């Protein structure tokens, strides 16, 4: 009896239903907690681009204390996008991954402003970036100093880069290579920052617009370069506007 085809089909069907139900239940129960974990992680990355976040610190509290945010469009104007229920989509809720699939002109661009303790003056502008790595998407947050030219810090993350090679973009040491680099040249043209091929390039080649690459992960490094180039050009209108504002307010 146990070897009959009918038995096998019925057995398989029942097993599938039980397992499917169990997994659906688990996903439903754990969903909200996972969402919160992802939110904390994203905010930690945003903060991480500008400050050292101690382990065990209350990320959400630090975030509300230090970060204010708004959304701009391709032309650098502040906008308040609405979702289909008519609620305003805050910068935190803009889904960079979904925006990435739209044309650059139609995307919404969140801007996170970092303020020091007790100060209302912006200390850094943190811009999210998104792009393609070797195997899957890569993304990150780039903090610019108030001159909107110099990189104050960078955080990268990835979905499926090779551990030990491309996945090294998540290492602090690699991310720190971007500190102090400039995205505009002396003439004021946008040149972005490129990650070079190979590692331990001679110091004289690592100028203001180049950072040392990762050995064995050239395609991921190229992905980072392209991602930065794209997003700095998308934010260019906003950056120019903000710069003029800073100058006129002086």
């Amino acid at each position: 009896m146990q070897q009959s085809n009918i038995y096998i089909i019925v057995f398989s069907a029942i097993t599938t239903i039980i397992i499917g139900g169990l997994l659906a239940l688990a996903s439903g129960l754990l969903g909200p907690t996972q969402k919160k974990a992802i939110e904390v992680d994203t905010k930690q990355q945003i903060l991480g681009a500008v400050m050292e976040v101690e382990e065990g610190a209350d990320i959400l509290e630090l975030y509300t204390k230090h970060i204010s945010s708004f959304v701009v469009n391709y032309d650098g104007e502040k906008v308040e996008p609405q979702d289909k229920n008519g609620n305003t989509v805050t910068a935190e809720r803009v889904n960079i991954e979904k925006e990435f699939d739209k044309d650059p002109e139609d995307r919404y661009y969140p801007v996170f402003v970092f303020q020091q303790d007790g100060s209302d003056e912006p200390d850094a502008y943190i811009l999210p970036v998104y792009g393609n790595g070797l195997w899957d998407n890569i993304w990150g947050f780039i903090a610019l100093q108030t001159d909107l030219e110099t990189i104050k810090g960078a955080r990268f993350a990835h979905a499926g880069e090779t551990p030990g090679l491309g996945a090294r973009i998540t290492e602090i040491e690699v991310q720190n290579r971007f500190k102090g680099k400039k995205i505009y040249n002396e003439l004021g043209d946008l040149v972005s920052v490129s990650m070079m091929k190979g590692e331990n390039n001679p110091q004289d080649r690592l100028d203001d617009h180049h950072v040392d690459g990762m050995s064995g992960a050239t395609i991921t490094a190229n992905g980072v370069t392209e991602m930065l180039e794209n997003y700095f050009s998308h934010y260019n209108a906003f950056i120019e506007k903000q710069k003029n504002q800073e100058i006129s307010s002086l």
Partner: protein
Amino acid sequence: MSVGTAEKPKIKKEAEPLLSKRRKKFVTDPLNDDNPITVQVLGICSALAVTTQLEPTLVMSIAVIFVIVFSNLIISLIRNLVPTRVRIIVQLAVIATLVTLVNEVLKAYYYDMYKLLSVFVGLIITNCIIMGRLEAFALGNKPYDSLLDGMGSGLGYAWIILTVAFFRELLGSGSIFGFKVFEAIGLEVQNNGLMVAPVGAFIILGLIIWVQRTKTGYVEH
């Protein structure tokens, strides 16, 4: 837990105590004489991949022990219902379900570890130790025995990868569970980059196997 080797002959009784000699052997054998990694040489892949640091290794060990114990138990409970022709698929389905559960729980409550380990936790599904135990043991033994057997193999796997991770983290990063040991005692020790690379795991694993086989006298035929 005692890691002594039980080499007494098997004794069969009518009403067996919960931890009879025979049953103790299920747990103690895989720890040394029949270790899944060093003797059966299974599960090497994850032993290389996750052992650069102790913390992820510990999480991985717990995940593997959980999956192997419960998949052994479940398969043993339904062993008389499973049609022989689809048994491998059923085993895989049970393992995959448990692994997915572990992954989801990690994602909810231990997100940092999830980011680090997610790929490798997923690969527990293909960890030969687990499939091997289901096929070789759980399909033909009672639930309680299978549970002990799973526990034994899981612990056997765990202590080896934890040992490897201990040396790799100590020599490669100069720390234990992220605590900088050498700095704390004021020693200037250069970190060994080789230990962070997978090659480091091969070397440590090779040394463990060497020491173990010298002691047990195990020879491969």
